[in-house]
């Protein structure tokens, strides 16, 4: 009797494994359409967001002293820059009026706190505490003080999932700010980004600032991605291999801003 029970349990275990593997392989092949599991994504995000939120306070205590000192310095610099830019803004407005150009208002920002991050090499979305209730929608651009963070890929009523620029699936149209040469920014892996699509004859220099171009209708234009750290023409084919040092430290990110609207929409 005991032997029969043990034998049944043995085959039962194998049957469970077979079912689990079949189900997961089936999902791998047939359920990777975003529409199929949209509701499950939202439900999971809401549940995990609620479980992670109490731990979010811990994040604030790591490196708080150093961060405060840096922020005070940055505040002083930004106050000076702000004064200069305010002057330039009014001057720009007057000139636009003279030329008959339409004025554009700044984008609306939704402030959010990073409460968690999935950690798998190559795909590490952020969980932020702003969701559909605050007006967040899929594909909205997410920024931090130093530049682009990524885009919203999933929204639940109270939380959102953000695909950061260091995700293996991330890519965005980018330009070199100095001469408007356009390329495609991708995450090269582990420490740096890669700008591709610029011909060998393209004028690129170390230290050039790379910003979003806004031509792929998701990311708003002009957001800083990073600076050119090195160029490897020896490994290049038709296009230059331009390595980018990004400026936003995703691992230490706490506050982010979600831009309402996308590159395809007019700013409000």
């Amino acid at each position: 009797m005991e032997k029969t029970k043990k034998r049944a349990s043995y085959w039962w275990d194998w049957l469970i494994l077979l079912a689990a593997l079949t189900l997961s392989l089936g999902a791998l092949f047939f359920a990777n359409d975003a529409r199929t599991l949209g509701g499950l994504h939202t439900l999971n995000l809401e549940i995990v967001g609620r479980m992670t939120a109490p731990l979010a306070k811990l994040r604030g205590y790591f490196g708080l002293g150093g961060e405060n000192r840096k922020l005070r310095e940055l505040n002083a610099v930004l106050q000076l820059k702000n004064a200069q830019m305010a002057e330039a803004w009014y001057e720009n407005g007057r000139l636009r009026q003279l030329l008959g150009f339409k004025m554009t208002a700044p984008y609306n920002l939704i402030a959010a706190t990073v409460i968690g991050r999935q950690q798998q090499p190559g795909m590490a979305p952020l969980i932020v505490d702003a969701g559909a209730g605050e007006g967040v929608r899929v594909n909205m651009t997410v920024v931090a003080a130093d530049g682009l963070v990524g885009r919203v890929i999933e929204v639940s009523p109270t939380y959102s999932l953000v695909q950061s620029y260091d995700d293996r699936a991330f890519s965005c149209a980018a330009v070199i700010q100095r001469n408007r040469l356009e390329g495609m920014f991708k995450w090269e892996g582990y420490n740096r980004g890669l700008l591709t699509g610029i011909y060998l004859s393209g004028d690129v220099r170390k230290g050039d600032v790379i910003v979003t171009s806004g031509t792929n209708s998701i990311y708003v234009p002009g957001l800083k991605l990073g600076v050119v750290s090195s160029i490897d023409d020896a490994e290049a084919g038709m296009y230059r291999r331009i390595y980018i040092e990004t400026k936003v430290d995703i691992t230490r990110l706490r506050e982010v801003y979600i831009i309402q609207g996308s590159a395809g929409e007019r700013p409000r």
Partner: protein
Amino acid sequence: MNFIYYLIMVAVALGLQHGVSDLVAIAGVNPDFLLIAVCAIALYAGRGQGTIWGAAVGFIEDSLTGGLIGSHAFVLSLVAFIAGSMMSYRSLQSAYSLTAGLIVGLLALVHNLFLYLLNVHGAAGWLTGLLMAVFLPAVYTLFWALIIFAVVPESIWEKIYKTEPSTLF
């Protein structure tokens, strides 16, 4: 009753994985608390129940990573089955800390290798990829597994492990 313990384990692991794992990262290498939780369940409950929990946790992970739905579910089911097969209920009671920790470390290698093969990691070289995505995270997960298995009071482990496993959950 066991179901509640396992549910708490998974909830805590999910909270740690998404809330604090990047804060304890060293040079971009993170521990995998979910893998530790799934292995802990499989080590005690056996490979059948472990596989079910592995698949369930894997699907939750899949829906949160933005990656391929089914990839974590596939790997965690397999890893849980191996963990459950490697350690019997009785031997675990006498050597849960070191042996269980080492099993988790070994399975972390298998787990990371599968995920590495299923997902293309940017344009970095394969050797760097293997080191950063497979080997180092496995070592760091082993480190955390040993700490967790050793630091969590023996009375709690005994409370969990001395409860006879139910037929399912």
